[in-house]
């Protein structure tokens, strides 16, 4: 267990060092639907403390990115783990890990739409 944990932590450290926070604002198109998918993809491949996703999400909102995209980004950041996938496959099985992450990715988009629509109704 320990070698896997150390390897994952090392990979995460590398990822966080290489990808700057400013990268996230550059890839959105300002189209709510496409941005929701981009948000979910970015959140899925990102990792780190959820607080970081709130800070980046808040900055994205300030930069004019659609709320759909930001909610999808924040949700997938905490529910989908592409970086952690090797560890999840190793401990819980490949089929389980892949299915769980695909479903969580789709749910991030659905939840973002539901949250924004509910906010509009309220």
């Amino acid at each position, binding site marked *: *267990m*320990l*070698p*896997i*944990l*150390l*390897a*994952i*932590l*090392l*990979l*995460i*450290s*590398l990822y*966080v*060092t*290489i990808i700057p926070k400013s990268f996230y604002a550059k890839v959105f198109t300002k189209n709510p639907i496409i941005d929701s998918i981009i948000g979910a993809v970015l959140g899925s491949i990102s990792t780190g*403390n*959820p*607080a970081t996703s*709130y*800070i980046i*999400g*808040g900055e994205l*909102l300030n930069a004019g990115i659609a*709320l759909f995209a*930001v*909610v999808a980004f*924040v*949700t997938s950041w*905490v*529910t989908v*783990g592409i970086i*952690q996938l*090797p*560890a*999840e496959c*190793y*401990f*819980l099985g490949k*089929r*389980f890990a892949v*299915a*769980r992450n695909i*479903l*969580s990715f789709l*749910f991030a988009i*659905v*939840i973002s739409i*539901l*949250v924004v629509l*509910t*906010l509009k109704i*309220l």
Partner: protein
Amino acid sequence: MKQTAENVGVYGKKRKCAGLIFLLITLLLYFIIFLFNADVFFLSLRYFVRIFSKIFYIVIIVFVFIFLTNLFLKPKFIVRHLGKESGTKGWIIVIVSGIISMGSIYIWYPLLKELKEKGMKKGLIATFLYNRAVKIPILPLMVYYFGWLLTLLLALYMVIFSVFLGIIMDRIS
């Protein structure tokens, strides 16, 4: 294939080897990065030391949990409370424990693996993992950036969808 003690032993050794190979590949990657960009190497290493020192005590807690699980939680108990017949109680247990669980996700995998092997439903494992996304201590930060209504709605939808996820995972498993 019949699962003998010998087979289990060989499987365990293979898994251990796979973990060591994965770590060696990662270290090799770091070595290559060091050759081409020492700054990235040292920054990554510094970040690694920081997160490792942060989660170290939680890793120990998880190891203690695993030890206690093996000692006291017998498969019969797990099957009754978190197995196929656990019902609503099982969902509530994993939702609450997912929300209050702390530390990085990967330190929980070994414990979940133990529970799975003792009979915990896969759907409940998926629901537990999903609810780890609802982090009460950092919700004030989310309220600061997005407002309390969005924060509340997101948390509520996540809990609801965690159950959907669990049900689907059980169906496809």
